């Protein structure tokens, strides 16, 4: 082998190595390693523990379907507005057409957009529940998310029900331009109506809750609850690091950080969330 071929050879062998190690770990997600403590566990064990690591209680991302199962009484879930679909109002194209991206994501996730809304009971008590799903384009908020949450809150106002929204979102969906930004206003207006009727609204912040969602309904809960160690931010960490050119505290923009600064009522583990919400609802007697 000539010397000039040496780097090439090395690159190839590295690629080969990666392939090899992948083959070992891939028996299709049967075993999962905790991102935080490295515990290796059987996937069903993790699922049974609501996707919370049994050793270090790291919270894995949960899909909206899993959340519904975890929170709502079995068989009581009644979804709303499942057939709302974005129209790609700007004809947006980045590296891919937005309309195509929507179709692909819908196919992959089985969802039409980044939020599921509906009513259900929690230990017999009826609530309006909205759950964002980070798998759908980073949980970004476009027209459909805005419309579904607004309709949910309008229903809650009309039927005098408490509302709960679980946030998981990267912020406004840029592919819909200013229409996305205006969804912040729209949802906030619906919350104003809900508030005026003296109804309870609880926002539950899960990782990540950032950008336009933080600057609207996430922070407007009468009570605000967060999952442990969730990322909750207005601006991205990298943006801030670049502007101030300084290291940020380790727990910056985590639930614990926000709790310390007075922006959260409670930090509740996912395994306790249902019982805590039921307790809170029972302490607010809505039927006048």
């Amino acid at each position, binding site marked *: 082998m000539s010397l000039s071929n040496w780097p090439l050879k090395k690159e190839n062998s590295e690629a080969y190595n990666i392939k090899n190690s992948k083959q070992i770990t891939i028996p299709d997600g049967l075993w999962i390693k905790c991102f935080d403590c490295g515990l290796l566990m059987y996937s069903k064990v993790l699922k049974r523990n609501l996707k919370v690591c049994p050793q270090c209680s790291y919270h894995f991302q949960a899909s909206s379907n899993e959340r519904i199962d975890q929170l709502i009484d079995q068989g009581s879930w009644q979804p709303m507005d499942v057939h709302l*679909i974005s129209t790609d109002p700007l004809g947006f194209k980045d590296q891919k057409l937005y309309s195509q991206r929507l179709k692909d994501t819908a196919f992959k996730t089985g969802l039409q957009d980044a939020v599921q809304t509906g009513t259900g009971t929690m230990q017999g008590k009826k609530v309006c529940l909205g759950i964002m799903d980070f798998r759908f384009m980073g949980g970004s908020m476009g027209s459909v998310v805005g419309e579904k949450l607004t309709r949910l809150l309008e229903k809650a106002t009309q039927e005098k029900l408490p509302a709960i929204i679980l946030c998981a979102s990267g912020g406004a969906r840029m592919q819909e331009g200013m229409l996305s930004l*205006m969804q912040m206003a729209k949802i906030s*207006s619906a919350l104003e109506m809900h508030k005026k009727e003296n109804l309870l609204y609880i926002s539950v912040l899960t990782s990540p809750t950032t950008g336009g969602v933080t600057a609207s309904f996430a922070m407007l809960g009468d009570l605000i609850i967060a999952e442990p160690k969730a990322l909750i931010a207005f601006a991205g960490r990298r943006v801030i690091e670049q502007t101030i050119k300084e290291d940020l505290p380790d727990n910056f923009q985590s639930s614990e950080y926000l709790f310390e600064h007075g922006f959260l009522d409670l930090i509740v583990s996912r395994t306790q969330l249902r019982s805590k919400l039921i307790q809170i609802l029972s302490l607010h007697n809505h039927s006048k």
Partner: protein
Amino acid sequence: MITSNRKPIVPDFMRPVAELEGQVEELKKLAPKNDIIINNKIARFQNQLVKLQKEIFSSLTPLQRLHLVRQSERPTTLDYIPGILDEWIELHGDRGGADDPALVGGIGKINGRNIVFIGHQRGRGTKENVARNFGMPAPGGYRKALRLMKHANRFGMPILTFIDTPGAWAGLKAEELGQGEAIAVNLREMFSFEVPIVCTIIGEGGSGGALGIGIGDSILMLEYAIYTVATPEACAAILWKNSKESLAAAEALKITSHDLKVLGIVDEILQEPLGGAQADPYTASQYLKKELTEQLDSLSKLDSQTLKKRRYEKFRRMGAFYEI
């Protein structure tokens, strides 16, 4: 109105005009005072120059508009206020330990009607910009705005807001003090006020930082102003993974006044003098005053409940989707 006497920075697309302008000035100096033929020729040059300028300005790309409104000569909120209001007093403080210089507000009178005004305040030149934090308010700014708007609501004064910010401040302190919460509360509370609210985008409307004082019964926008969900630079960096694609991002995001009128986000587009508001700030302020007066005249005919209902429905309609 330009406070410093340093040479203004000319954007690329204005360079040919600026060069020709300079040459015409030179010619004028050189030409003998009473030579009619030469003077006629110079006048013709000047006419052509105006035509050229009109042409350039009628075909500005979104990114060029962004650069135009970021020019430091562009009038800011406090430049417009004296031209618009008969008399005014700036008020200070959020009553929570801060007075944010990037968001100003106060009470005043427009055509005999008492109002409260609120606006983002950029600076001119580096020193002033640092003091004003480049027009990027901290949470305290939004809380000051809310306090002033509540004041307006109590005393039945219409609210005028002027939007001109690259975005809400993204910094350690801003996160610590709850930037998200401050903006969120403003969004909700602005739907509860029983007085007319007129918002005008006078320069750059940057995302949530702009929307934080941007809920109104009428949304006006200066011709060359832009209003965007994320700056084209940030959008390019995120979606194209390359911040050099900001031209494409600016086109795709639909940030110009005409695009936003079509989308139903902006109600009226206000004409700017030739060369943009910075070319003739006084005239620009008079255009603005006329439109604001008309808006207030028509809005104050509505009773408070109708006003609130209209505002709710206005934003309720925004969004594009279909149902199958």
